[in-house]
């Protein structure tokens, strides 16, 4: 790979509070090729792309594009230079037409500087004709299916006549036919000299379309190789091949009888026929790639969203869960994935945040038993080594790790038998991380049954007694601690059929 590069990113560094998101990363892309970025969730792929399009500013490193060293202060500059991106999360304006969405912010002008709808429609039609997209440009965006929306986004990215197009999981929401269509489009773009940076979790797709592959891990550049020199197994090894440097204080817990049995749980395309068992004293890990349906399983079990079918049995008795209240009454607790969005109540005190799920217990006749509340919160504060000046402190003033501890306390105070924890240590510093791991271990020892969803491989391997691996809404395998390896999990997470081959 010694030809001229279209894009050279060298030594790119990006630090977020508490996380070294990109650690001196390199990426070199040749014109007219497809360069795939591979890596686990949180490896740094999306962050690097956001640096490239000007959404994030790097803390170090240089970017050379089209032979010139550049800085990209905002996305408009990036677009102007010829870098466009199809984002993983689509962001159309639903009330506007397809054509208006495509030309948003650069609408063709007609007489007197007014927007010319006819020209807008005509150029959209030309664009669609050229790329064989069969969508009426005048239709409102909101009437389109997700797949059609995705195709419009792709067309929009192409319409900038960019030299480089970034595609972040463009095929996650579209059908086989459309995937084939997209791959044909990519072929044509390559011929015209456009370079494409492609991010996907689908292994078969990577080898079908890539010329080069770069692998990231934990914010670091691992390898850049021509796709022809790689195969699936080699690639997985590169992606996960880290040493388990972190210590996991997993304590031996006595595994008791089955407390939770889930059979045939279904919710749309997100949760498909999920069945598993959970025992007392067990930590059951849920592994899988982003969007595999792990969070959705927990939310469905907990009644945040209603299941379409399936049976849930707790302690041998079938239970009906229509809302979180029912789940709490059945002895379950759910620590959600997004601390800020669905966890903390920022402007409320630590005390209020702690007692929120256990309130009925502390107010049998409607009035709060403040003495008991203060006593129990104090016990939690000490047991979890919570760092806060007082229980009256607003939770938003605490660090992420301490907020997480408060949320764990929230559920411990309900005295649950089953504790479901979604990403227990996301965005938390290393010290608090191991404290939370130790706590989970202790809870298991006390006979609590724990379900842990985690996107961090070392955490899954270090903490779980058994691991449920999910792929596209279904369980693709359940493996025991003794036979769990990173490679095995990644095989299952990228699709059951390929793993069998």
């Amino acid at each position: 790979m010694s030809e001229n590069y279209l894009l050279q990113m060298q030594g790119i560094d990006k630090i977020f509070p508490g996380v070294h998101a990109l650690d001196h990363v390199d990426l070199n892309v040749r014109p007219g090729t497809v360069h795939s970025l591979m890596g686990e969730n949180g490896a740094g792929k999306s962050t690097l792309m956001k640096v490239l399009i000007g959404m994030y500013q790097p803390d170090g490193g240089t970017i050379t594009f089209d032979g010139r060293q550049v800085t990209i202060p905002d996305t408009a500059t990036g677009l102007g230079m010829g870098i466009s991106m199809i984002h993983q999360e689509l962001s159309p304006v639903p009330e506007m037409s397809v054509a208006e969405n495509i030309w948003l912010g650069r609408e063709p002008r007609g007489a007197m500087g007014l927007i010319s709808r006819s020209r807008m429609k005509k150029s959209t039609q030309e664009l669609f004709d050229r790329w064989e997209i069969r969508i009426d440009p005048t239709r409102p965006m909101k009437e389109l299916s997700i797949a059609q929306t995705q195709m419009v986004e792709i067309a929009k990215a192409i319409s900038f006549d960019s030299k480089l197009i970034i595609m972040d999981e463009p095929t996650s929401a579209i059908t086989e036919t459309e995937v084939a269509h997209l791959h044909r489009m990519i072929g044509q773009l390559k011929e015209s000299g456009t370079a494409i940076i492609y991010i996907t979790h689908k292994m078969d797709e990577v080898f079908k379309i890539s010329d080069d592959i770069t692998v990231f891990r934990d914010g670091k550049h691992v390898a850049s190789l021509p796709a022809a020199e790689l195969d699936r197994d080699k690639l997985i090894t590169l992606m996960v091949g880290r040493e388990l440097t972190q210590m996991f204080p997993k304590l031996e817990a006595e595994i008791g009888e089955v407390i939770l049995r889930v059979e045939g749980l279904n919710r749309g395309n997100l949760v498909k026929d999920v069945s598993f068992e959970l025992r007392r004293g067990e930590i059951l890990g849920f592994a899988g790639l982003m969007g595999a349906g792990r969070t959705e399983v927990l939310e469905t079990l907990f009644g945040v969203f209603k299941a379409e079918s399936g049976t849930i049995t707790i302690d041998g008795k079938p239970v009906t869960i229509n809302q979180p209240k029912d789940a709490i009454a059945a002895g379950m607790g759910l620590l959600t994935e997004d601390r800020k969005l669905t966890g903390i109540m920022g402007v409320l005190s630590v005390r209020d945040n702690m007692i929120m799920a256990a309130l009925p217990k502390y107010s049998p006749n409607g009035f709060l038993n403040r003495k008991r509340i203060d006593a129990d919160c104090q016990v939690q504060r000490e047991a979890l080594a919570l760092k806060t000046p007082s229980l009256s402190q607003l939770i938003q003033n605490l660090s992420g790790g301490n907020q997480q501890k408060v949320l764990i306390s929230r559920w411990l105070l309900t005295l649950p038998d089953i504790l479901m924890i979604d990403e227990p240590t996301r965005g938390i510093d290393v010290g608090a991380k191991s404290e939370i791991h130790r706590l989970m271990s202790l809870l298991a020892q006390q006979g609590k049954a724990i379900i842990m969803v985690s996107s961090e491989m070392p955490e899954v391997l270090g903490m779980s007694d058994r691991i449920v691996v999910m792929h596209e809404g279904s369980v693709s395998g359940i493996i025991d601690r003794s036979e769990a390896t990173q490679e095995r999990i990644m095989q299952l997470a990228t699709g059951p059929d390929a793993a069998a081959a």
Partner: protein
Amino acid sequence: MSNTATEARTSTFDWGGFIKKYAIVGILLLFVILLSVLTGGTFLQPQNLINVIRQVSAIAIIATGMTFVIIINGIDLSVGSIVAVSAVVSASLAQMPDASVIMYPGLQLPVFVAILAGLAVGALLGLVNGALVAGFNIAPFIATLGMMTAARGLALIYSGGRPISKLNPAFNWIGQGDLLWIPVPIWILATVAVAAHVVLNFTRFGRHTYALGGNEQAARVSGISLNKLKIGIFALSGLLAGLAGMLLAARIGSGNPQLGTGIELDAIASTVIGGTSFNGGIGTIWGAVVGALIIGVINNGMDLINISPFMQQVVKGVIIVLAIIIDERKNR
């Protein structure tokens, strides 16, 4: 080591926090002092101060309910119209038999029936607000805007557009009478404010209110029945508006269907001046009462020093906006 440090910090008094929290009381005192000086002491006379409080009692009672609503990120625009419905309904049931225009000839009910009817009709309309918000997922602004218009119409239809006069003196007593030298409306306000403070701070309902306002998604995951809570809070706001409506009717001795026009804005202003955040999750009852007092003090004081009512509006407007600016800075 770090433990002792945190203990030490909790034991020293947090002056910054104290000042932030009670700044609003300081502002009230500042106005009182300023007006006392400007009026040469007239303002400070007990009779005048009592008068100020009586004048704002209806606003303050409504602001108490409004505090609950705004804490949960809502707004209740319909309280002024609910005031009118409650006023005409309770007045119609409390008319003297010798009234010249009488709604129900020959009907002589005990006064408490009229009072209960006024409260009930307020709570009922509030309940409808809550059902629209919770059941149909309509934005509180829109739901209560509809109710504001419709309830005013109902009050006009019910009363035939005319004031309902010649009321039972026992009914008028709640707006005009004294108890232990203090006007009855002030007793009612005190009772409502203390009860609301207790509910907000010492009951499950109150914690749930803050939780819903602080983070609706998190409240739901914590097992709180959001719909019931929302309906309850809007019903409470309606109930208190109904109570205020009767106070106002009793004070003037007639149930006027135009009563309470614009009072929702004074109540919202009181709540906001009192530190309740439009971002939800933050607010106190005493703040709302102090807010109402500030509005009352400004009105009364500026009357005493002969500032034109037009200018008074400007001053009030400026104070409301200043309160919001302070609130935004405080919560950053």
